[in-house]
């Protein structure tokens, strides 16, 4: 929204520089995105009188014009009488006219902000000297009117007077960020905005009397030979609907140029007096008005001037002013003539009652509508006009009457139309003004401020609250235009805001002397990150939403994903079910960037439908950790073991002992879907056997789909499961022994179908039965080509806390281990 500083100045005094004013408005009302100096465009642009205008020989449209600039322009060629010659191509140039002249060296205002501003000069046109130019409204950057030069009223000012002075164009335009005024319908009118500007400078504001007159009397003006009836069929749709008929409309009449320039500078194109009146009053008061063609309306209604406000019908259609035919819904508010829709209330009129050049009689509508309905209308039909922007802020019912009265006055003044009916009105429920009772103490308790009663009364009276005081109690009657004020907190905001929140002393809350620490879960996640970073992995964050392609490539069923219904981007279709697909999607691009060997991990939430709802009836969220390792170059050995290496390190560091179990081929879970079951394992907590996640290589189709290198693998685990498993682990520190340690390597040959874990378990079981301290670690895994057996070498570490082990003791242990292996897993000692 654009606000004109000069327009504000017509309504309140402003005695601080614009820069300070903008800062003050920013701190106490609304953010100003930009301040534009309008006046610079009109430097040297002056009003001149046309002394003579003669057709140029051999030209069908050019005239040689002599102008009187009052003698003020320097360095310009003049004739004997001191007049300046300009060649002008406009058809409407006439002697004695007052027009706007752009002297040589001035810039055409229309081009002022363009990349190539057009600088005027004195030059010959068809052999005739032409100095500068006489300007059209468009060249003056006022509005899009280029049929001829801009004609001013005769004797509007002495020739030579700056154009900007007469039309108040030495103005600054404030570009206001609308969003934070969503609750302030009053500020969408310049009067309301000026009221705030007065108050933030601690000045009293006086609303014009006509706007305070809530029951204006139009009887004197009215000829009343025409009838009009209005009805609100459903009082939830509109608080109040008023309309009046005016006759003798002349669509060719213009509003005063001064008014046109004000409309134009805030972005509204002047059309004719009728339309300009409605726009001017909307800008002034925030109340939009609409005009219908009376005779068309009567015809549509079946020869009765009968207006209804009602909900749209299903399957009802309406052709709008812009030519679109829309399908109405029962949420739209419709203005109907008789039974036929003639307008989408608050949004746009219908084509069937549009005002045109033949219009003689009009109906002016001044009304309010349910803002929630209008908002849905706005979204559904994509209408973002100045009017609906204001209506959806919730204009008060009281405002319609004074603005309608003002419209009648201006309409007759500018267009010559006369009032031809009584005000027809529907006002089902009278709106009352709230009165809020409070004490200064309460305001200070909310804000942490120190206002006294008189301060508070003064601040509120500046913005025209009616105040009564009873001892310590203040009773504030809310002005009718402040629909946003309901409760004492709203009053506190007024006080704090109008005096500047920044003047409140910042303090700290008193707090109990109790330590707060991050949750154990937060600490745990932090630890997981540190561990993986230390292992050389890179943490990534990827989007929670994925394209269907990603799910498909990862072998996951999109029916298990929550689907985004309104995304503006095609890549955001589904909530992801697990994190692995997002990581796989990053591998190829990073390899192409030149990274050969890396590990990516992410800790984040994922969502799948199969998990159902929480007790709050919202989807269950899983907190997952996924890691993917990739190497551009081929390496010997299965990549599975590289991923497992990371996982073993992670588990060891958090102190958890896990087992790896084969994946069943029929397992079909989002988690396991991307993994190749023959080369993957389920990770289980050794103590409870509960499943924590999966580690492995990916399916061939997945590798292909994501264009992964051959050496790639990863894991994904449920962080909550992991956390639960780690929660009750006791720290397993054991003191060091003072006695030497013995090592023995044993090499066992076993059948290929005996897995490594069986061997380890077997050895561990044996060692558990022995009264010595032991540790085991793998040394070598060997298989001769095409052999059906493998040789596994294990190192056993032995010691005691109370003596040095003898070689007999050690030998006895090793024999036991070997014996058990031979018996239980058919091992052969090599």
């Amino acid at each position: 929204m654009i606000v004109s500083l000069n327009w504000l100045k017509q309504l309140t005094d402003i005695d601080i520089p614009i820069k300070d004013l903008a800062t003050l408005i920013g701190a106490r009302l609304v953010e100003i995105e930009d301040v534009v100096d309008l006046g610079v465009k009109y430097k040297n642009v002056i009003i001149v009188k046309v002394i003579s205008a003669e057709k140029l020989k051999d030209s069908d449209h050019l005239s040689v014009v002599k102008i009187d600039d009052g003698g003020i322009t320097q360095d310009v060629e003049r004739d004997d009488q001191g007049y300046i010659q300009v060649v002008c191509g406009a058809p409407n140039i006439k002697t004695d006219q007052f027009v706007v002249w752009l002297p040589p060296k001035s810039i055409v205002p229309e081009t002022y902000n363009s990349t190539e501003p057009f600088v005027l000069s004195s030059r010959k046109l068809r052999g005739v000297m032409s100095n500068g130019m006489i300007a059209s409204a468009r060249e003056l950057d006022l509005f899009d009117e280029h049929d001829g030069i801009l004609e001013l009223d005769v004797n509007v000012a002495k020739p030579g007077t700056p154009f900007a002075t007469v039309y108040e164009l030495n103005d600054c335009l404030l570009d206001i960020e609308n969003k934070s005024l969503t609750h302030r319908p009053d500020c969408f009118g310049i009067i309301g905005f000026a009221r705030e500007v007065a108050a933030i400078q601690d000045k009293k504001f006086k609303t014009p009397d006509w706007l305070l007159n809530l029951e204006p009397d139009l009887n004197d003006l009215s000829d009343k030979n025409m009838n009009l009836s209005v009805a609100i069929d459903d009082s939830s749709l509109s608080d109040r609907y008023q309309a009046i008929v005016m006759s003798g409309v002349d669509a060719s009449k213009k509003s005063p140029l001064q008014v046109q320039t004000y409309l134009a500078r805030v972005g509204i194109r002047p059309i004719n007096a009728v339309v300009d009146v409605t726009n001017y009053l909307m800008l002034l008061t925030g109340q939009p008005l609409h005009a219908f063609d009376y005779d068309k309306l009567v015809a549509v209604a079946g020869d009765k001037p009968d207006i209804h406000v009602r909900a749209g019908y299903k399957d009802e259609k309406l052709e709008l002013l812009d030519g679109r035919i829309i399908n109405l819904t029962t949420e739209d508010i419709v203005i109907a003539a008789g039974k036929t829709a003639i307008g989408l209330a608050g949004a746009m009129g219908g084509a069937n009652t549009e005002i045109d050049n033949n219009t003689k009689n009009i109906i002016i509508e001044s009304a309010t509508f349910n803002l929630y309905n209008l908002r849905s209308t706005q979204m559904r039909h994509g209408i973002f006009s100045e009017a609906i922007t204001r209506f959806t802020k919730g204009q008060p019912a009281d405002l319609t009457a004074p603005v309608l009265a003002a419209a009648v006055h201006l309409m007759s003044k500018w267009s010559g139309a006369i009032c031809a009916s009584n005000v027809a009105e529907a006002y089902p429920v009278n709106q009352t003004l709230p009165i809020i009772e409070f004490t200064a103490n309460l305001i200070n308790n909310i804000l942490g401020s120190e206002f006294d009663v008189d301060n508070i009364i003064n601040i509120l009276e500046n913005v025209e609250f009616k105040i009564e005081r009873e001892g310590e109690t203040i009773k504030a009657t809310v002005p009718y235009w402040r629909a946003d004020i309901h409760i004492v907190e709203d009053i506190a905001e007024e006080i704090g805001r109008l005096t500047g929140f920044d003047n409140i002393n910042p303090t700290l809350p008193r707090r109990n002397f109790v330590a707060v620490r991050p949750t154990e879960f937060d600490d745990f996640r932090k630890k997981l990150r540190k561990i993986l970073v230390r292992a050389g992995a890179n943490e990534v964050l990827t989007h929670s939403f994925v394209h269907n392609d990603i799910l498909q490539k990862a072998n996951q069923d999109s029916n298990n994903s929550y689907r985004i219904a309104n995304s503006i981007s095609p890549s955001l279709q589904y909530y992801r079910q697990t994190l692995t697909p997002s990581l796989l999607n990053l591998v190829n691009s990073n390899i192409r960037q030149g990274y050969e060997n890396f590990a990516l991990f992410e800790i984040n939430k994922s969502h799948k439908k199969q998990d159902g709802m929480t007790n709050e009836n919202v989807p269950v969220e899983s907190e997952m950790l996924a890691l993917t390792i990739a190497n551009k170059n081929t390496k010997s050995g299965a990549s599975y073991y590289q991923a497992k290496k990371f996982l073993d390190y992670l588990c060891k560091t958090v102190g958890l002992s896990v087992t790896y179990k084969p994946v069943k081929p029929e397992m079909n879970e989002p988690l396991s879907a991307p993994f190749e079951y023959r080369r993957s394992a389920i990770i289980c907590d050794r103590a409870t056997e509960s499943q924590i996640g999966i580690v492995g290589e990916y399916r061939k189709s997945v590798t292909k789909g994501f264009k992964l290198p051959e050496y790639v693998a990863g894991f994904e685990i449920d962080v909550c499961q992991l956390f639960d498993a780690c929660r009750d682990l006791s720290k397993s520190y054991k003191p060091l022994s003072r006695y030497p340690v013995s090592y023995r390597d044993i090499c066992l040959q076993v059948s290929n179908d005996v897995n490594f874990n069986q061997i380890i378990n077997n050895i561990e079981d044996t060692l558990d039965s022995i009264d010595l301290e032991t540790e085991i670690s793998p040394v070598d895994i060997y298989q001769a080509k095409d052999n059906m057996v493998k040789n596994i070498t294990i190192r056993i570490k032995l010691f005691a806390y109370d003596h040095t082990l003898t070689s007999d003791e050690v030998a006895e242990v090793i024999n036991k281990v070997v014996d058990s292996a031979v018996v239980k897993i058919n091992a052969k000692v090599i």
Partner: protein
Amino acid sequence: MQDINDIHDKLIAQIVASDSPREILKSSDLKQLYNVILTLPVNERGVYGKKINDLKQKLETAVVARETELEDLTVQAIDVTAPWDINTSELSLLPTEQGTQHPLTTELENVIDIFTRMGFEAIESRQIDDDDHMFTTLNFPENHPARDNFDTFRTEEGFVSPAHTSTMQNRILKKNKSKLETDGQIAAISYGRVFRNEDIDATHEHTFYQYEGVFVSNDATLGQMLGTLRSFFEIYYGQKLETKTQPAYFPFVEPGLEFAIEKPATLGGEPGDWLEMLGCGMIHPNVLVAAGIDPTKYRGFAWGGGVERLVMLKYNIEDIRHFESGKLQFLRKFL
């Protein structure tokens, strides 16, 4: 001339049994079908041609499926319990000097750390939620225009992707209201991922992180809110800071403000450079009521700010899209 359906059945059967299924796409039966086109009247060619194309598509799908199946047959099972593969040796992790933590999680940990030291509990925000938590309990009536300002993603199932961490506010208030009786206050932050349905560019992401604070006591004031926020930023930037505010409208607070700090010298700030950091305000009584807290006895304040903004300023990051890009080029700068 063989019927297209017959050829379809015949070739599919061949593909399913073949060890080199792609060869079957070169079948003479297919070539013949193409030859038939030329013999047809012009107006029938289009329909016929489309049929052949459909057939080709189906065969292609079958070939890919068979190829995948064949590839799968070559997959060897491994001993998943072993520490490394047969005839290889012990594996190592990656060099620790190439490991990096994501800058957003680093700073988020930092923010949580400061607020917990200030006495605020930290709770992670949800990534999928309902209208009730996102809007209704926060004093946004149904259809309220202010809902538009949040550009919220919605799912077909009727859920929302939270557009602010305030989606946790009602939960925090409800869960902790008993503390008001015992400790006299609720102090918590919620942090996490939020979503806005908007186009992305160097300064806009549809996915970003917020931290939100909630404080309720029997004597909370707006002055305390200003003090708390200033204190946080002073600790975060390690220097004294000027602050300023601007009125703002959020339905869940009254009064509502935007909070700005003077750009810290450590970030190259000069006096008069302001940085808008977050939105804040006194919790609207309706929000307290929605959580079963009596607004005549207790008052509170709340705020919500973006983590990306903190991080981008701190490291001078030029493009917000880097954060979720997963580019090692970017990530490895944060050693």
